């Protein structure tokens, strides 16, 4: 509560005091070191496929106020660790008709899930593009005999948080060639489509205008390397697709559903715009 109020006041003071000049447009000059131990790359030369679009890619973390950035630098201050703990608990819990837990097959989460988040979303053995949520539910329903979790449920977010943390500090490593290429192409087309009555594409805000302010919001490049992340405004964890729903809705458009094929493809393309950045495991945003 206090934190939220403080963050708002901070933004207001910054907006009023500094004017709206280009100086404000810059992402912060800051280094993300978590627990004084794990250094996370938040700024990198853009991947070759972004030539002519972006020179440098930045994590959304750099566009937040110092106050919010700090919360992500210490696991004790990071509200996502409530989710991470719940996820870890579920990892070790036997569920379903097969009498199995995730740990029974994958072992210790730190080993079994190391680097997995960095490769998501990816093409599965059957040739479908899957997000991490799809892999988890596949294991639950087909391997454990347990019920699927809803995409944006607390259970699902807790597990994706626990799994994502095992890639913290590792570079985004999505494949965009081979069997992924067709999905990637469609995701790219979506990224540049101007949806809704406001006729805005992802690029209108996150490529053409990152660093600028849209009303109170300091626009980032809309990267996904920080997900799943905690939104102070919602006082809850937010999934990648949940964020996409919100951004498309805000163009006065009919949005797509979390878990839809369209959003998996968009997720792949957006993830590939973050090649060079590190997975943050669990971000914090205003």
């Amino acid at each position: 509560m206090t934190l939220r109020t403080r963050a708002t006041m901070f933004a207001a003071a910054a907006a009023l005091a500094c004017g709206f000049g280009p100086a404000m447009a810059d992402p912060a000059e800051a280094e993300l070191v978590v627990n004084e131990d794990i250094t996370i790359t938040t700024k990198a030369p853009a991947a070759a496929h972004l030539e002519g679009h972006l020179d440098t890619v930045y994590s959304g973390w750099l566009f937040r106020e110092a106050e919010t950035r700090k919360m992500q630098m210490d696991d004790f201050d990071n509200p996502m660790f409530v989710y991470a703990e719940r996820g870890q608990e579920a990892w070790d819990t036997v569920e379903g008709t097969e009498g199995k837990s995730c740990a029974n097959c994958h072992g210790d989460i730190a080993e079994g899930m190391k680097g997995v988040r960095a490769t998501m979303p990816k093409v599965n053995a059957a040739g479908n593009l899957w997000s991490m949520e799809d892999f988890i539910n596949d294991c639950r329903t087909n391997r454990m005999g347990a019920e699927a979790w809803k995409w944006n449920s607390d259970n699902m977010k807790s597990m994706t948080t626990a799994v994502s943390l095992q890639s913290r500090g590792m570079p985004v490593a999505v494949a965009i060639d081979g069997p992924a290429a067709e999905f990637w192409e469609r995701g790219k087309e979506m990224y540049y489509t101007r949806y809704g009555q406001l006729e805005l594409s992802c690029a209108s805000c996150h490529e053409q205008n990152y660093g600028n302010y849209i009303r109170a919001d300091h626009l980032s490049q809309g990267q996904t390397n920080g997900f799943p992340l905690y939104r102070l405004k919602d006082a809850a964890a937010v999934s990648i697709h949940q964020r996409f729903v919100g951004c498309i809705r805000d163009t006065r458009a009919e949005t797509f559903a979390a878990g839809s094929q369209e959003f998996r493809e968009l997720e792949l393309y957006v993830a590939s715009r973050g090649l060079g950045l590190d997975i943050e495991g669990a971000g914090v945003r205003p």
Partner: protein
Amino acid sequence: MKSHVVLAALAATLAATSAFAEVAPTEVTFEEGAVAQSLTGTAGNAEEGSKIVANRALGNCVACHVISANSADFQGNIGPTLDGAADRWSEAQLRGIVVDAKHTFPDSVMPGMFKTGPYIRPGDAYTGKAAPADLPPILTAAQVEDVVAYLLTLKE
């Protein structure tokens, strides 16, 4: 009986006046981006306009523009400041920009405020649901005129 006739006549006159005066979104004529003809035939109300530019559900112009004279909080900088807009643009040009800025600035990110399509996946305002078949423009003709009247007060 008599008063009924008078009322009906009055209603007919009113209907005729507005039918004559109000331009529909699909009937607006642009000339190099500018729209010379008032959409309502009556002068807009600048005071109303000052509220519309700050209203998130309506123009929300301050989401993208700084207007120093306006008290709206958190003014954005996606577009240029509108201070002095009336020195740079004529009334017709300003009307054209508000109706549909893409006639003045091709590919602009500025949304068309008085158009009804064609759109890709139009929504029902900010609900995320599909738009009704008769999706109204973001601003009514009268609101466009109010905003134009307000912009005309922005002189340096």
